[in-house]
C-alpha cells in the first residue's frame, strides 16, 4: 500500500483509456517536450502520510509554542474576541473554495459581500470609496504612499516617526527603487504636537503620513495638519486601527484623503501574523488611482441589482506595467470575516467593543502608572495602548516577565534607540481585571528585584 495521501481519483483503467484517447503510450510520453537534460536533479522529500498522522504531527508542532501567555502585546496585531459566527460563515465552502469573481453571474455571493465590506470600511473611516482589500496594514500604507504620488504628481513624502516602525520599514522598501524623497520626522514621546510634521510640508510634498492612534498609543486630532497639508497641495494619509474607530473620530472627519489600516482585529485570528487584510479608502475623486480590485453595483438585463468587478482598466491584467499596482490576489476571505464580524457586533456592539478596550486600558494605565518606577509617557489621550517608561531597561523587564508567563508589551529600544526603557502595553477586551492586577504585581516584582 502506498503511504501518503493522494487526491488524484483516476483509476489505472481510466488512465489507460485517457492515454489511448490522447494517442500516447504512457504518462511519461506527455513529459517529452521537456528536454532530458533539464529533468530534476533531486526531489528529496519525505514520503507522505495520512491526514491522521499529519494532524498528530501538527499538534506536536503547535505544542512547541507557549500555550498560556497572558498577552499585553500589540504592535499592529491584536488579540480580540471573535464571535463564533465568523468561523462558521466564512467556513462555508462556497465562500472559501471560490476564486476571484471574474464571472459575476455565478459569483454574486462573493461580490455582494465585498460590496457590503466596502460600505462598512467607508462608514468606519468616514471616506467615500474603498477597494475590496489589500494584503495587510503595512503594505496598504505603502500603496497609499504610492497612490499619493500618483494623485499629486509629486515626489516627496513626509512620514511621522510615530507610525508603526514595521510599517515604515515596508514603506521604505516599496519606495527604494523609485526616485522619491521620504522624510521621516523623529517622534518626541510625550509631546504629541504635530508642529514638526506641519513644518516639514512644502510645495513638493505629495502627502504627510500619520497613524492614529500612533505606535505609542496616543490619539491625536489631525484637523490642523490636514488643513495645512491641503493648503500646500499635499494629501493627508492616515493609518487607522479599526477597533479604535468605534470610539475615536473618523479620519475622514479629521480631513484625511487616504485611510488605510490592518483588518486583523476585525474577526481574524492572530495566526502568527497572517492572513489578515489591509483596507484602503479614499475620496471619490481619487477612485481611479486606487490600487486593487473594486466591486461596483449595476443591473442585469431585467433591471435587477447585481455586482461586478469594476474599473478593471486600472489593474495589471489589463494595464500591465501601467497599472495602479501589481496586486492581483488580495485577502478577500479575511475581508469577508471582517464584514461578518462588524455585522455580528453591529452598530451598538462595535461601539461597545471600542469602549470596553478603552476602559480596560484606562484601568491598566492607572494601575501600572501608579507603580513606583513606572511613568506613563503619553502626552495626550490613548485608546487601548499606552507607553510606559520603566526604571529598568524594557528588554530586561519583558524577558523577565515572559518567563513568568506574561507578554508585557513591545519594548521600544529596538525601534527607537533612545527609548530603551520604554514599553508599549496593549490591553484589549480579552484581558480581565484580575490579569491586569496580576501583571501589575509581577511588573513591580521585576522592576524592584
Amino acid at each position, binding site marked *: 500500500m502506498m503511504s501518503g495521501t493522494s487526491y488524484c481519483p*483516476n483509476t489505472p483503467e*481510466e488512465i489507460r483509456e*485517457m492515454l489511448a484517447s490522447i*494517442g500516447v503510450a504512457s504518462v511519461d510520453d*506527455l513529459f517529452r517536450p521537456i*528536454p532530458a537534460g533539464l529533468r530534476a*536533479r533531486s*526531489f528529496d522529500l*519525505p514520503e507522505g502520510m495520512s491526514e491522521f498522522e*499529519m494532524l498528530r504531527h*501538527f499538534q506536536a508542532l503547535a505544542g512547541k*509554542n507557549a500555550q498560556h501567555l497572558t*498577552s499585553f*502585546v500589540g504592535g499592529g496585531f491584536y488579540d480580540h474576541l471573535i464571535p463564533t459566527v465568523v468561523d462558521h*460563515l466564512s467556513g*462555508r*465552502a462556497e*465562500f472559501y*473554495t*471560490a476564486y*476571484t*469573481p471574474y*464571472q459575476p*453571474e455565478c459569483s454574486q455571493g*462573493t461580490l*455582494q459581500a*465585498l*460590496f457590503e465590506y*466596502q460600505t462598512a470600511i467607508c462608514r468606519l473611516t468616514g471616506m467615500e470609496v*474603498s477597494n475590496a*482589500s489589500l*494584503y495587510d496594514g503595512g503594505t496598504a500604507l505603502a500603496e497609499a504612499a504610492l497612490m499619493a504620488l500618483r494623485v499629486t504628481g509629486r515626489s516627496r513624502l513626509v512620514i511621522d516617526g510615530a507610525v508603526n516602525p514595521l510599517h515604515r520599514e515596508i514603506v521604505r*522598501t516599496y519606495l527604494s*527603487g523609485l526616485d522619491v524623497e521620504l522624510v521621516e520626522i523623529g517622534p518626541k514621546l510625550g509631546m504629541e504636537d504635530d508642529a514638526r510634521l506641519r513644518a516639514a510640508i512644502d510645495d513638493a510634498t505629495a502627502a504627510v503620513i500619520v497613524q492614529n492612534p500612533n505606535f505609542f498609543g496616543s490619539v491625536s486630532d489631525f484637523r490642523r495638519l490636514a488643513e495645512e497639508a491641503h493648503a500646500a497641495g499635499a494629501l493627508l494619509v492616515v493609518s487607522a486601527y479599526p477597533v479604535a474607530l468605534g470610539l*475615536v473620530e473618523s479620519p475622514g472627519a479629521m480631513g484625511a484623503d487616504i485611510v488605510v489600516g490592518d483588518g486583523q482585529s476585525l474577526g481574524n*485570528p492572530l495566526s*502568527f501574523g*497572517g492572513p489578515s*487584510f489591509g483596507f484602503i479608502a479614499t475620496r471619490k475623486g481619487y477612485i481611479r488611482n486606487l490600487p486593487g480590485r*473594486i466591486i461596483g*453595483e*449595476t443591473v442585469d438585463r431585467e433591471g435587477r441589482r447585481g455586482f*461586478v468587478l469594476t474599473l478593471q482598466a486600472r489593474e495589471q*491584467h489589463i494595464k500591465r*506595467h501601467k*497599472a495602479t499596482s501589481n*496586486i*492581483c*490576489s*488580495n485577502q478577500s*476571505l479575511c475581508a469577508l470575516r471582517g464584514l461578518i464580524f462588524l455585522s455580528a*457586533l*453591529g452598530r451598538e456592539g*462595535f461601539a461597545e467593543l471600542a469602549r470596553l478596550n478603552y*476602559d480596560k486600558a*484606562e484601568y491598566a494605565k492607572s494601575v501600572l502608572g501608579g507603580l513606583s518606577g513606572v511613568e506613563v509617557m503619553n502626552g*495626550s*489621550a490613548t485608546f487601548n495602548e499606552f507607553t510606559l517608561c520603566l526604571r529598568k531597561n524594557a528588554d530586561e523587564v519583558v*524577558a523577565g516577565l515572559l518567563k513568568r508567563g506574561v*507578554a508585557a508589551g513591545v519594548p521600544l529600544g529596538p525601534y527607537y534607540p533612545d527609548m530603551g526603557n520604554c514599553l508599549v502595553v496593549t490591553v484589549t477586551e480579552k484581558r480581565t481585571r484580575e490579569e491586569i492586577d496580576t501583571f501589575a504585581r509581577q511588573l513591580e516584582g521585576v522592576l524592584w528585584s
Partner: protein
Amino acid sequence: MELIYEQSRSGRRGVRLPASDVPAAAGLPAALARSEAALLPEVSELDVVRHFTNLSRQNFSVDTHFYPLGSCTMKYNAKAIEEAAKLFAPFHPMVPLLPGGSSFSQGCLGLAHELGSALAEITGMDEVTTQPLAGAHGEMTGIMLIAAYHKAKGNKKRYVVVPDSSHGTNPASAAMVGYEIITVPTAPYGDMDLDRYREVMTDEVAAVMMTCPNTLGLFNPHIKEICDIAHDHDALMYYDGANLNAILGKVRPGDVGFDVIHVNLHKTFGTPHGGGGPGSGPVGVKKQLVPFLPDPRIVKHDDGSYAVDTAHHRASIGRTAGFFGNFGVMARAFAYITMLGRQGLIEVSEQAVLNANYVMSRLKDVYDLPYDQTCMHECVFSAGRQVKNGVHAIDIAKFLIDRGYHPPTVYFPLIVKEAIMIEPTETESKETLDAFITVMREAAELAEKEPAAFAEMPKTMPVTRLDETRAAREQNVSYFGC
C-alpha cells in the same frame, strides 16, 4: 438579495460582549471622540447567519462545481489542512521578536522554516523567504532582490524583459520596482521568439521573467538557452511559479538556470482561494541573492532550535510585509506537502498533465487549437470558429454556467484571440472531465445550429448578464455612497 444594511432595524442587537469588570473611564476629549457611531448593520445573529449563508449559495466554488479556470489551479482543497491551520490560530507574531521570545514560538518558527526548506528542494533553490503575501507580492520582492544584486555589483540596469504571453503581474511588478519593460512577442510555435529575444538582450537588462510552462500550457524547450543568454549579460532569470503544478518532481527551475522563483501556495499547494485571496507567495533564490533577502529571517541553530534574526542586514531589501508571511496559508500548504510527500507531489503533476491533454484531445476537433502540441497542465483553445457565427468565448462561458460549470479563463492569454484556457487539475476524475467535454461539445454544436440562443445566457443564476459599462460609469461602490 437585500443588502445586510437594508435588513437593519434601529436598536436591534447581534452578538453580546462580556460585561466590563473595570470602572467606566472618563471619555475621550470632545475633539477626539467620534461624533456619530459608524452606521454598521443593526441585525440579529440569526439575520447574520441567514444572510451570509444565502449569499454563499449564490457562488460557484470548487466544493460545489468543476472549476477549470486556467492559470488558477483550482484543485480540491483538502479539509485536513483547514484543521492543521487552526492549531496555530492563537499565536501572536510579535512574541518571537520580543527579547528572549523566540523560545516561546518554536512551533511556528519551525513550521515556517521547514516549509521554506521543502520549497527550496522542490524548486531547486538555495534559500526561501516566506514573507511575500501573494504571487504578485513575491514577484515584486523577487525583482527587488534582483535590483539589490545589481546595485551591489555596480551594474547599470534599466530593463526587465517579459514575453507577451506573461501574466500582467510580471510587467506590473517590475514597474513597481522602477524598471522599464521590454515585451518579446511569441513565435508561431508558441514560445517566446528567440531571435527577437536575442536582439533585445543587452547589458542594460536586469532580469528576464518567464512562466514555464507558459500561459499557453507549453514547456519551452529553449529555456536553458534563454537562461544562458540572460546570464551572459549578467541579467538574472525570474521564474513565475504560477504553473509549477505541471512540473513537480519533473523539473526544478533552479536546476534549469533560474535565479529567483515565487511559488503560489494557493495554486500548487492546495490552499483555498477564498474568493480572491488570501494567497501566499514565498520566494526562493540562489546563493548570490541570499544576502538581500527580506528582514526578519528565521534561522535554524545547530541544536535544532529556531530563532528570528532581527539584525538589520546591510544588504537586505528590508521588510516587504508585516511579519513572516500569510502564516495560516503557509500552515495549510505545509500540511498538504506533508500528506502528499515526494511520491504524491510527482503524481500531482503527472495527473494534472494527463487530465489537460485528455481534455485537449477530446475537444480539438470542435474548437480551434492555435498551438497544437502536447500541453502541460493546461490547454488554450480559441473560439475563433464559433465567432464566425457570432458566438464569442464569453458566450460559451455563460453557456457553461447554465450547465453547472465554472467557465474556463477566457480572453487570457492576450495573444490568443477569443482564448478559452482550461486547467482541469489533477483532482478531477475522468467522469467529471467526460461530462465537461460533452457539454463543451454541445456548446460548439449549438454555436453552429442556433447561435442566437447564447445571447440570453445565463438564465439559471440569481442575475442575468450584468451591465459592466454602467458599473464603471456610475462608480457606485458603497451603499448610499456614504
